């Protein structure tokens, strides 16, 4: 299969807009679960408004949240796919820029020093592009995540010591969730990275924060810790928007990587309740959107 870069450009444009408009089904189901358990009157009212907003966005063809985020594209390329790598990166960038201009999206991306906004949602090293490979034949999947920044500002890394143990990792997560309170637009998905190097640990936290609900960490010990932390954060009482209640988070997700004998890294990255993502799959048979 030859990857058609013009087609990829259009897919990247459309995925950005789809992600901004349609909340993934697992997050919608997550809202139903939280509504069933929420006991605070304020919390229930806020969850009700959030669910109403999802319906209003679909009915009025509007985007869910004003924050168009930092655009992230995650590509997974299977076997027997031919492509021009530099052309692929350029096509993704053009798709991102076209979404912004053709749909009049707010460009939320600025130069970090001059704060200049090019009004394209693009800038130096943005959109963020990750490319990975798997064993599927003639298949390319593209995931687009407009990462909202109220929650992205809730990011932390701590290089703990091996002697601090895993209990210090858990305490770190709980204390950061407390510190953030309502600022990160709860109910959230708390992404936790454990292990790796400092940069990999932070990246693991982002993978965890953007993983679908009702999925589990592939590692048994990681899965046990995420189940434990998922229960614990919802006993803190932070609640929707930090105004009290049980629904602080949809879930805590953990992703892990092997680390150095001297290290015990933990990272936290938060996803807000507008946990937007969209995915398309390209095969010789055509394009399908999830």
């Amino acid at each position, binding site marked *: 299969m030859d990857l058609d870069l013009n087609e990829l450009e259009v897919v990247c444009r459309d995925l950005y807009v789809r992600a901004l408009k349609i909340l993934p089904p697992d997050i919608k189901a997550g809202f139903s679960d939280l509504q069933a358990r929420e006991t605070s009157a*304020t919390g229930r009212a*806020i969850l009700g*408004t*959030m669910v*109403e*907003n*999802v319906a*209003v*966005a679909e009915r*009025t063809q*509007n*985007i*869910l*949240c*004003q*924050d*168009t985020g930092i655009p992230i594209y995650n590509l997974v390329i299977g076997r027997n796919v031919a492509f021009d790598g530099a052309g692929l990166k350029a096509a993704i960038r053009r798709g991102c820029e076209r979404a912004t201009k053709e749909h*009049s*999206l*707010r*460009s*939320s991306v600025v130069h970090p020093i001059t*704060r200049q*906004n090019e*009004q394209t949602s693009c800038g130096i090293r943005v959109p963020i592009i990750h490319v990975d490979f798997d064993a599927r034949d003639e298949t390319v999947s593209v995931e687009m995540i407009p990462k*909202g920044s*109220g929650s992205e*500002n809730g990011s932390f890394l701590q290089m703990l010591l091996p002697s601090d*143990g*895993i*209990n210090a990792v*858990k*305490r770190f997560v*709980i*204390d950061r969730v*407390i510190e953030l*309170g*309502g*600022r*990160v*637009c709860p109910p959230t998905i708390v992404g936790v990275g454990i292990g790796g190097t400092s940069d990999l640990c932070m990246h693991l936290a982002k993978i965890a924060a953007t993983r679908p609900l009702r999925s589990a960490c592939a590692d048994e010990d990681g899965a046990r810790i995420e189940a*434990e*932390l998922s229960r*614990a954060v919802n*006993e*803190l*009482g*932070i*609640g*929707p*928007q*930090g*105004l*009290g209640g049980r629904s602080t988070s949809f879930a805590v997700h953990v992703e892990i990587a092997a680390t150095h004998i001297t290290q015990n890294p933990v990272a936290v990255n938060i996803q*807000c*309740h*507008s946990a937007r993502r969209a995915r398309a799959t390209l095969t010789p048979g055509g394009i399908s959107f999830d």
Partner: protein
Amino acid sequence: MAHHVLDMPIDAGHARALRIGDTVTLRKTLFGIRDATLIHMFDRDRRTRLDLVGHAVIHTAPNVHRVEPSEAAPVGYAPFCIGTTTSMRMERFTDALMDREGVRLIVGKGGMGPETLKAFAERGGAYLAIVGGAAALETTWIETIVDVDMDDLHPESLWQFAIRDFGPLLVGMDSHGGSLFADVQRDVASRRDAVIASLGAAR
């Protein structure tokens, strides 16, 4: 728990009548403001020609369409998606915003801190919590973009919106030292040790 319908602008007396837990519907006018707007206004001493005295500001930077100027779009902008950003980043500007520009109410998400609470108590103001991330719904409460200033900062310009029944909003902080956010934070702090203790010890 009273409900207040406020035709903006208001005076200090109206602002002081608001108590945490009350709800508010705003009418007529609302201004949009955020990080860059405030940095330029107060750190770089830029002045706006818009009159904010007695008004409410919302922490926002909207998605807009550029259109031909008309009665529905006096400055050539039509609202597309208008939502709310996290307020806490703007904490250090509240007092100056009230003192120099005469702002009375702040609409935002996530709450603000002690400096803001102090400014509300001294000058008569309140924080109205909106549901963050519910921008599609919020947009239906906006009628027109009436004016815009400092648009070189686009989208972080100073926006003037005409609104219809904007709310209900929850009074999250008032001019009597009350803060629902601080109340929840105290409650959360009191639960922290028990939650930590409930976590299984490492093998």
